[in-house]
């Protein structure tokens, strides 16, 4: 027992060291090799479903059979699937069978699990990840789950570091690079309560240009108007009072 813990421990720590130097395809390749060694033939890494987002938008890495992914997306299974639903409610990794649902009262959940089995996705192990800006899951599938608890712990680390590496590679090099210097400057004046016209006088540019920059900044910040853009820029530390 101690030996297998040593073995899996080394393996997980080696993985952690290795991914730090890899690009996204390299991380995925190494991750796939590790989960395959534990008997998983398919997996997905995706953000937790929320209204208005499709699975393809949320997917970080896709190792589902293509036909299953296509069916899942087309039928909007993500809203019925009991696995991500359970993942949203727990911080502990779990087996799919722990994501309980009642066949009678929740036929939609049962449908997803039944259709999954047709693609040899019968049993699985799921690692929930909770970030400040929302949750994600890594869900791995096999025909028959027969995995040592120590290997599960190793997969937990491997999953966390694979996901985090891919996530950080997709991050802009600097948060501040999100907005241009001009956009920040104009938001800073807007935060002081200046109108577009007043800003245009201060900066000696046209009012139209001021509005243009405010719209650009609002779009980048996902803000609906200038007040919201100012609030979001402040909260993210992009401008200071």
């Amino acid at each position: 027992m101690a030996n297998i813990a040593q073995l899996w421990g080394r393996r997980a720590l080696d993985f952690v060291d290795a991914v730090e130097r890899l690009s996204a395809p390299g991380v995925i390749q190494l991750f796939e090799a590790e989960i395959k060694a534990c008997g998983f033939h398919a997996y997905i890494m995706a953000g937790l479903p929320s209204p208005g987002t499709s699975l393809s938008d949320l997917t970080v890495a896709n190792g589902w059979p293509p036909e299953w992914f296509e069916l899942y997306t087309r039928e909007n299974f993500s809203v019925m699937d009991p696995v991500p639903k359970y993942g949203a409610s727990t911080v502990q990794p779990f087996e799919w069978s722990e994501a309980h649902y009642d066949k009678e009262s929740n036929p939609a959940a049962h449908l997803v699990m039944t259709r999954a089995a047709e693609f040899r996705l019968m049993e699985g192990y799921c690692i929930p990840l909770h970030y400040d800006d929302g949750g994600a899951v890594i869900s791995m599938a096999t025909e028959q789950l027969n995995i040592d608890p120590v290997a599960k712990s190793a997969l937990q680390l491997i999953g966390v570091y694979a996901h985090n590496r891919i996530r950080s590679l997709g991050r802009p090099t600097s948060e501040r690079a999100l907005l241009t210097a001009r956009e920040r400057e104009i938001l800073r004046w807007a935060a002081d309560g200046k109108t577009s016209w007043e800003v245009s006088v201060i900066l000696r540019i046209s009012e139209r240009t001021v509005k243009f920059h405010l719209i650009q900044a609002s779009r980048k910040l996902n803000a609906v108007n200038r007040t919201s853009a100012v609030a979001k820029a402040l909260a993210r530390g992009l401008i200071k009072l």
Partner: protein
Amino acid sequence: MEVHVIRRDNRHLYADILEDYFRLRHRIYVVERKWMDLDRSDKREIDRFDTDDTVYLLGLEGRNIVAGMRLVPTIAPTLLSELFPQLALNGPVRRPDVYELSRIFVVPNRRGEHAGPRAEAVIQAAAMEYGLSIGLSAFTIVLESWWLPRLLDQGWQARPLGLPVDINSMSTVAVIVDVNDQAWTEICSRRSVPGSMLVWQGLAAVERRVIGDPVPAI
């Protein structure tokens, strides 16, 4: 919120606050989190890792404690060496330039979203600032594993020391986090921490590097 550095050399200035602090820890860890092993008849949560060598970082607003954490030198007994040695594959870290962080908390009414930087981020940025100031090279932390993605996501380089283990049915893992300028700049920029937070009251004699603004002004 200002984060005060409290250590052997200036403890006398904080006698009342430390008294409040140990009572607060009882409320958070015994009453709220139900770690009943820590229960004591005097309702102060204080253990063998609270020694003269322990450093406390307390986030204060006036006299009120908002957040806190303690740093224990790893050349002395630590949670990792004494309580959770199974979490470190190569044995516990024991180095003069590495401290173990523990009892990281934010008082209940200051958790979750607020305007401005969150207390949780401020206290962690303060730990990084402290480490940089006095020249530490790393922190070790024993933490619930679900915290690990967030730790990494704030731009900290955290390497596991071993595999996660279920302790009291919570997956728990030990990590070592590098102390460097990048870790401080990243947590400040990603978590909207405006910059230096530490107050060194009564510690003028401590040799330290002065830490400037983490992000260049616009």
